[in-house]
């Protein structure tokens, strides 16, 4: 291996570590920091552990500072976008579960085809919505919704179940219309597709009654992690708000279509409402409190 090769390898590895820093910071500073690192570690192939550790802690501190300096308006605006995209990802779970059920039940071919079409359309909707093309996303989401409803009409399922499957895209569409009207800028698509993959993995245990508790535990774990991220980024807990809203609507429809004991209804609605309140208080609430309590002394110290 030539020296040139090892230098570019080291540079690539350091560039990956620089992801610890916020994107706006990386745009203006990554090249300069990288130049210094390459001078320090000339001839190495792997980043030095102490340099790697310093980059990770430095990146985290920069993120915390950027979070504090972010205006509350932006926290709410981006938080709304995160919540709507999470609700859309939750909505996409329904056709995914539908496909799984269709394949295991030896259902008619048309069911599988319609469920697959709905899945493709709604995944595309999530990808374009994340990029900020909300009207296109609304179109794709509506087409996916139509595919599900058509499949249910053709296969003579009961209407309660059809409404249950089809209500979440409607929630997502309402949110997307708000984003489109407010002209909220878009961002990257891959974190949202990753969230979707995570939710699909989380939904697999819920196909079988005996592993349903595992699905609940996974969802609770995800929620807890999102709440903890409030320290680094106040906008992230809002993803939980979107997931909870999606679940709330689905649960309401289930309750309307199937008789349930009152205690179950109360605990279901109570848990979701508590979670909604928690994400709003912990995210934007903590942010507002920290902005108010942070004085110039904070930065002068050290």
């Amino acid at each position: 291996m030539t020296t040139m090769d090892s230098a570019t390898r080291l540079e690539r590895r350091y560039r990956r570590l620089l992801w610890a820093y916020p994107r706006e910071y990386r745009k203006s500073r990554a090249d300069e920091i990288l130049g210094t690192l390459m001078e320090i570690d000339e001839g190495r192939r792997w980043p030095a552990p102490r340099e790697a550790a310093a980059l990770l802690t430095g990146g985290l501190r920069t993120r915390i500072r950027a979070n504090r300096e972010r205006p509350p308006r932006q926290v709410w605006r981006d938080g709304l976008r995160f919540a709507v995209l999470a609700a859309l990802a939750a909505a996409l779970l329904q056709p995914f579960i539908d496909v799984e059920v269709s394949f295991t039940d030896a259902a008619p071919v048309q069911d599988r085809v319609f469920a697959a079409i709905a899945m493709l359309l709604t995944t595309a909707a999530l990808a374009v919505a994340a990029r900020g093309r909300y009207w296109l996303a609304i179109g794709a989401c509506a087409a996916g919704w139509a595919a599900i409803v058509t499949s249910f009409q053709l296969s003579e399922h009961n209407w309660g179940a059809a409404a249950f499957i089809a209500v979440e895209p409607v929630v997502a569409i309402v949110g997307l219309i708000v984003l489109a009207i407010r002209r909220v800028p878009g961002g990257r698509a891959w974190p949202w597709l990753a969230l979707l993959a995570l939710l699909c993995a989380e939904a697999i245990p819920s196909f079988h009654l005996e592993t349903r508790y595992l699905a609940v535990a996974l969802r609770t774990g995800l929620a807890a992690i999102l709440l903890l991220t409030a320290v680094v980024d106040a906008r992230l807990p809002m993803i939980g708000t979107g997931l909870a809203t999606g679940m709330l609507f689905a649960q309401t429809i289930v309750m309307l279509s199937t008789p349930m004991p009152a205690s179950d209804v109360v605990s279901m609605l109570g848990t979701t409402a508590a979670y909604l309140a928690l994400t709003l208080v912990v995210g934007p609430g903590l942010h507002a409190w920290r902005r108010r309590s942070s004085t110039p002394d904070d930065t002068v110290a050290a």
Partner: protein
Amino acid sequence: MREPTYFILTALLDGPLHGYAIISQVAQLSSGRVRLAAGTLYAALDRLTAEGMLRVVKEEIVSGRARRYYGVTEPGTVAVRAEADRMAAAAALVTHRRRPIVATAVMAV
């Protein structure tokens, strides 16, 4: 003022330097005791620039990458001098003692 901050400001008293040169200068001034990692250095440079103690004085492109030179400002020199005075006063408590130092003997029980 923390030690790395003190050494960074001191390293720049002779004139503006870029990132790697600051690290080398700090290591030399502290006889190799303070070895700044790049992540630590840039966190300190950002903070000191925001506080007005440092300023970017020159920017050039070296092998396709931006290289910035940092220089100490008037408030920066005042702050580092005040810190030096404080440390000198603290050191004088020991170095300028008139009375002999009473060391307690360590006894094995």
